[in-house]
């Protein structure tokens, strides 16, 4: 299902000419810079929410880009799907390699970086944060993974589909259904 860029907040941020950048990087790795700048925070956010601590997230981010640069020659869009999807497939594997005690730890145990002055903090109460933590803890792993790929990694539905092995339409359908279900719980209609 083609995704309309106008209705997808994530695709609007994609670096222009991603395919061309990937092709250039395959010829000359120095051209990888814009792709690194775009995807590195996304990989970090994703890993952070898989692993639960900043040190492991940084480790995984390093490994993902090392792997990606080593394997860039072998990346083929027709076989591997979107570049973002391919990169996050590596990230998933690297996070799985890091598995130890639990799938993720509560982020409340982390010390937030200096971004607490953002507008979101003004409207999110601690009660709401706690409530969301409880809701997220109750979710199935595959649902959490969808949320991580969408919110932490900010992937498009096409890229999410490439990562989880579904069509773009199926990924979108799964995500929308999940959000509808979460909204009911959030609004207290389906406790």
């Amino acid at each position, binding site marked *: 299902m083609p995704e309309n860029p106008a209705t997808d907040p994530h695709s609007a941020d994609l670096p222009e000419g991603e395919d061309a950048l990937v092709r250039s990087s395959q010829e000359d790795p120095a051209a990888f810079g814009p792709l690194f700048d775009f995807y590195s925070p996304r990989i970090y956010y994703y890993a952070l929410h898989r692993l639960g601590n900043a040190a492991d997230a940084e480790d995984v981010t390093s490994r993902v880009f090392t792997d990606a640069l080593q394997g860039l020659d072998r990346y083929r869009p027709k076989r591997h799907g979107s570049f973002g999807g391919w990169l996050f497939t590596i990230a998933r594997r690297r996070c799985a390699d890091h598995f130890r005690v639990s799938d993720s730890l509560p982020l409340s145990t982390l010390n937030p970086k200096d971004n607490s002055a953002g507008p979101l903090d003004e409207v999110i109460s601690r009660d709401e944060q706690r409530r969301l933590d409880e809701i997220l803890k109750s979710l199935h792993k595959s649902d959490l993974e969808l949320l991580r790929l969408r919110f932490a990694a900010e992937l498009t539905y096409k890229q999410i589909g490439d990562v989880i092995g579904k069509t773009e339409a199926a990924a979108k359908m799964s995500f*929308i259904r999940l959000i509808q279900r979460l909204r009911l719980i959030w609004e207290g209609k389906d406790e």
Partner: protein
Amino acid sequence: MNSTGGQTDGLEVALHHHFRSYEPDPRFLAQLRRTLLPSAADVRSSTRPPWHPQPHLRWRYAAAAIVLVLLAAIAAIGPTKVLAQIEQWIGYVPGLGEINLVGTRALVHPVSRTEGDITFSVVEFVASPDQTLVKIHVTGLPADASLSYLRVLVQWEHGNGLRMSKYQANPSYPPCPSEGCPAVRQPDGYDLQFAYEPLPADIQQIQLTFHPWGIVPGTSLSETWSLEIPLEPVTAEKPQSFVQPAYSPRSAVDTHFGIKMTVDRVFADTSRTLIVTSILVPTAPNFPSPQGASLSTDTGHMYEPFLFSNDLDLNPRPVQTMPPSAAGEATLTAWPSRWQFEAVNNQASRLTFTVDSIALAYRAQSDFEIELSKDPTVGTVIPLDVSLNIEGFYVHFNQALVVMATSSTQWSSNRVKALEFGIDSPLEVDGRKLTSIDLSHRYGQDYVDPYIDQKSGLTIGRLSLNPAVIRNGRMTISVDTVVLELRGPWVLTWDVPREAR
């Protein structure tokens, strides 16, 4: 306003906040960029052997070499013995997956160390040529213990011909096993799992060292607790209790609709039966989805799977393309799946694995146009005569109906006008049943909940009637995916080898 143009709701804000609050350290990203990019050319050139300029072809040489070795072995000692030997080389360790038994060493009996109320037990230690896996059970910890800080080192002594030197390894952590990451909290404590790089091949004794500081109250930073771990070679004839040799029931094959299902490997012990299957399909852009699986025995017992996995991310067996075995046959794509059942009755000598049906998603990639006014009223019926042929399955749309439906943007939902499509062709023909059709229109859309026929279970996508998507009185509809459920059943029967009972 949210990024989709609708009203922001509390859930959206909370989720964004939750997933994007902890920014990466810019110094880390800058350092990583500096480290990686100038050296990227070196990294890549070091992975490209000078004798071959096309690395993507290397696997073909490796595969050809393996085939040559196998052919030589088959010629020398006969195919039956070669296959039997291959089966003996592979074992299964719960939590680790399939392992190569050759060169694998393991702990024979669990070992423990108790300090005060706390007991660390090493319940499994498997050193395979691929990696080293350790499973630890801990009891007596305080309820609020934070096990994420636990560090466990593997230490060993190794001679270099002149003198013995001490080595140690930090955990590299294991991949989640293919059946899912295990729950760590147990009724009497915690199960922990660590993985390390492979040990040297000749190491038969190691020391496991725990650093209890930060987990056990009252311990100092320098305190360590150690356990001696003796290792013994694992063989198919003498497997450790948790290493289960596999067998391959080559007779277990069934084919319907050109879709072949095989049971490739079976692992069984007193706690569970794990079956690795392949579904080989001529064309399938996505996972074939098996429905209604069961395992029955000649003793009259029947079991339903409690775990099924075909998540390739967790499955070490990749999807493979199988070339035709004879002229005129199709190239098949093999999709691996794993099934776990409870342990089957130990009197059973014959097992039957049954799958009632397999659902396949086909990319239709077909467009059609409908004509309608800029703002059609609810109840308007637009006659259609649109036919699709999905792998020989005939689908005919006979109408589109304007209805009110729930539209979901990413963060909010409301009622909108939408198109609902009718089908008048048979939904089931010759054992193939239409179960789902995904539709979209060319200019994007707010997602509308699909129509689900309660009687047949058929799901058809609905499309919102946003005026922006109607151009010159026409709307282009794309049929994206069509799901057909193919009814078997696929029935795969095999004899349990005497030594596996």
